């Protein structure tokens, strides 16, 4: 697809390089020539220096031939105006990032009136993601499929777990429900396991399980967690606000530490049930005083990445809380991953992933067959959701037992969604027209269900 991205900031560049690698033709527009040149030298994209809202700039970026325009500039007004202009000039689909809560409150109206295809609020998305992590404290990572009915949970096998040294095909004797291991990470190596694979403690595994089964699974695996009742949040930004609001709604106790007095007052008006502490979160004594040692979860959401890392390291030292660390800017993922800072949340990647997912869905209506796509484990593994349509009958995929299909290696059919039923497939199960099929693979770039065959 021809895609124009207005705004070459963190999200813009992440999106540009991801979408370009997926084969789209990307043009990046930004008024700052340094931003444009760094985008052009880091990804195979075209760069245009200019004001993205101006008609002339949009024309020179090729708006007339564009299929989609994504506005991720620093200001909501600019983004919305560029979308409006693009809609009139090119009649393309438009996606805008809207962060201001006041606009986002009326987002349905704005979407309707400006003809936006998608409006995305990165803070709300990040908060929703963190909320899911808090719900399942034993998991390092949670991805959901089939509108949230299937979850892919990633966790580390603890020392002394019965999973240590076990062959995968013998696992299901220990569980009531079928548990399917989709991916195994041993150090830097990531692979799709088969029945003969032996698990070891210290490796991270991704497992498909229904939400209510998750605790059962992880507990059996030897991860001792208690449900989270209290959450301490360092930093009182927008993500903190959205997160606190959802947490309070589900009955958790929330404490927010914020340095800015007036922001504290604002938060206290918005979140009357939360405890708002005015103080510096990097003050060790304050953290101890507010009970960092006893909190169930600690979420570092200050505006400074280094401070977030430091705070989580400290929390890891003094407490047994579930840790979540937000990182917005620094790019030393390999290093940060090694630190004991719990689950790391990259808001820019969440935004980029959602938009990329939406683009998959558009392509879906344009011929490709992928409903949703998730990049797991640093993009080394893809989880895809396919629809089984009539063309799959021709390919000989329907009504054939899975064990008779000549599937690619490094590929696993994880779930079949048939109406309201979710099937964890075994060798005798078959695809039927209308099913949704979830596949996990290390082969990147599958486009159609028939691609799962050799």
């Amino acid at each position, binding site marked *: 697809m021809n895609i124009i991205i207005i705004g070459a900031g963190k999200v813009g560049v992440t999106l540009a*390089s991801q979408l*370009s*690698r997926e084969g789209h*033709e*990307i*043009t990046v527009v930004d008024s700052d*020539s340094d931003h444009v040149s760094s985008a*052009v*030298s*880091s*990804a*195979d*994209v*075209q*760069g245009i*220096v200019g004001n993205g809202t101006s008609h002339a700039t949009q024309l020179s970026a090729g708006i007339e031939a564009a299929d989609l325009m994504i506005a991720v500039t620093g200001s909501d007004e600019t983004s919305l105006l560029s979308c409006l202009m693009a809609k009139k000039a090119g009649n393309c689909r438009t996606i805008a990032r809207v962060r201001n809560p006041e606009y986002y409150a009326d987002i349905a109206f704005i979407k309707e009136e400006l003809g936006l295809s998608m409006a995305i609020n990165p803070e709300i998305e990040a908060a929703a993601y963190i909320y899911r992590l808090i719900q399942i404290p034993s998991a390092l990572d949670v991805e959901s499929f089939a509108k949230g009915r299937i979850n892919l949970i990633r966790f580390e096998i603890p020392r002394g777990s019965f999973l240590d040294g076990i062959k995968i095909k013998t696992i299901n004797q220990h569980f009531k429900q079928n548990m399917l291991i989709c991916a195994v990470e041993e150090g830097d190596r990531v692979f799709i396991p088969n029945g003969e694979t032996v698990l070891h403690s210290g490796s991270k595994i991704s497992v498909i399980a229904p939400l209510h089964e998750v605790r059962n699974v992880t507990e059996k695996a030897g991860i001792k967690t208690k449900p989270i009742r209290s959450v301490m949040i360092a930093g009182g930004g927008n993500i903190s606000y959205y997160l606190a609001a959802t947490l309070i709604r589900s009955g958790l106790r929330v404490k927010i530490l914020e340095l800015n007095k007036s922001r504290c007052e604002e938060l206290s008006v918005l979140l009357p049930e939360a405890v708002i502490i005015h103080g510096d979160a990097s003050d060790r004594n304050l953290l101890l005083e507010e009970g960092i040692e006893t909190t169930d979860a600690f979420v570092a959401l200050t505006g400074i990445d280094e401070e977030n890392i430091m705070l989580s390291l400290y929390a890891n030292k003094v407490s047994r809380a579930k840790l979540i660390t937000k990182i917005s800017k620094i790019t030393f993922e390999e290093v940060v991953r090694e630190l004991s800072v719990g689950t790391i949340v990259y808001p820019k990647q969440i935004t980029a992933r959602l938009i990329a997912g939406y683009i998959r869905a558009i392509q879906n209506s344009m011929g490709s067959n992928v409903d949703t796509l998730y990049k797991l484990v640093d993009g080394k593994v893809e989880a895809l959701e396919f629809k089984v349509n009539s063309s799959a009958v021709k390919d000989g995929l329907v009504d054939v037992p899975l064990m008779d299909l000549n599937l690619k290696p490094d590929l696993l059919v994880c779930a079949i969604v048939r109406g309201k039923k979710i099937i964890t497939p075994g060798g005798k199960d078959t695809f039927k027209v209308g099913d949704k099929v979830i596949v996990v693979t290390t082969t990147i770039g599958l486009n159609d269900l028939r691609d799962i065959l050799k």
Partner: protein
Amino acid sequence: MNFGIIGYVIGVAVCVESIAMIFPLIVSLIYNDGNSTIFLICALLFGIIGGIVAKRKPKSTSFYAREGFVTVALCWVTVSLIGAIPFFASGEIPSFTDSLFEIISGFTTTGASILTNVEGLSESMLFWRSFSHWIGGMGILVFILTVLPAADGQNIYLMRIESPGPVVDKFVPKVQKTAMFLYGSYLLLTLTQLIFLLFGKMPLLDALCITFGTAGTGGFGILNDSAASYSPYIQWVITVFMLLFGVNFNFYFLIFTRRLRQAFAIDEVKCYFGIFFVASAIIFANLCFTQTPFGGIREVFFQVSSVMTSTGYSSTDFNLWPQLSKAVLVMIMFTGACAGSTGGGMKVSRFMIYFKTFTKEIRHLVHPRSVKVLKTDGKPIEHDTIRIVNVYLCAYIFVFCASLLIILLDNFDFTTSFTAVATTLNNIGPGLEMVGPAGSFAQFSHLSKFVFMFDMLAGRLEIFPMILLFLPATWRRQ
């Protein structure tokens, strides 16, 4: 420095060259001139060597500007060393230095020759010489980019460094598609010229060689008198196509995508044709008034477009022209063709920036607080661009002076030495006096020939890659 990926790219380039050698092999088989074994062995040998080198996929694909410069420079040196082997092995050019000079002159689209009797070469060697112009014109790495899957955006470094001009941009978002468009339009224009020449009853091999020389703006002729003995029709065809290949390929892209108004609004293209007509007018008037016998406007147009686009064909010995005309020719050697074309020289767009900076600074002397942003095509020019264009001029002058001083060791007259350096550094071909259209570079010493080779490569790759190649800091481990 990521040596793995540099080796990989060079390996692919060697493979591409070995494939290119199949064409002279075919010519050799058709004319049965006895060189088929040489080309067959070269093609096989380097195909295998390149294949082995390129088969080892580099561990890390990190590729930055420094790797880009080194890759491009080393690539051109390697390809030239290999390309010289057929000349030397066949014995048609007895010295390896001369063979190397000849092929570098070919790949860099210079067209300067150490041969005094071109007609003595066999058909396949003539073809290989001219074909090297065509390969070098658009660039071997740009060709590789059309086939190499673009992993990330870093391929743009290769394209930027190999394509001439101060600012190199993609026409479309993907490097690969841009490279494909460049080669596509290059091929199309080449075929068009070939058809026109065949229409003028030129034999196929001659037409191919002349077309390659024009397309790459190279200038190796296949006759001792270059283009003088061709019919007026053929001379007109060559004149027009030389001019066309000197135009920024962005122009063709805009025409191809039906943005005619934008295409004809490119400042550089307007300026390029402006310089062409003004230079032609001056020379025409000068020739008329000094009453030198000459062949009319066709002769003037031919010489001017040949020198300005850095092709270097000649339909007359312009060494015999009056002083003013010769001076104008030497000057347009320096301006050269458009950026983003196959032509050489310092490029019209750079001169436009020099002229604009000059007028801006003069105005600044009168109004010290005036603020003026320089523009091309209605868009402001980046300060970085202006800076690098100015530094380019300095680097150019340094290389020029250093080369000239070394050349003068041979103690030839100043005009010969000066124009010899100018003609190699600007990738033109003929100069004046001894290196004029009727002369050759044969008499120079080996040292001078190596200096010329450096100049030709430096001119084609726009100075910096070749300087970086010899800079210790480039190779030092950080």
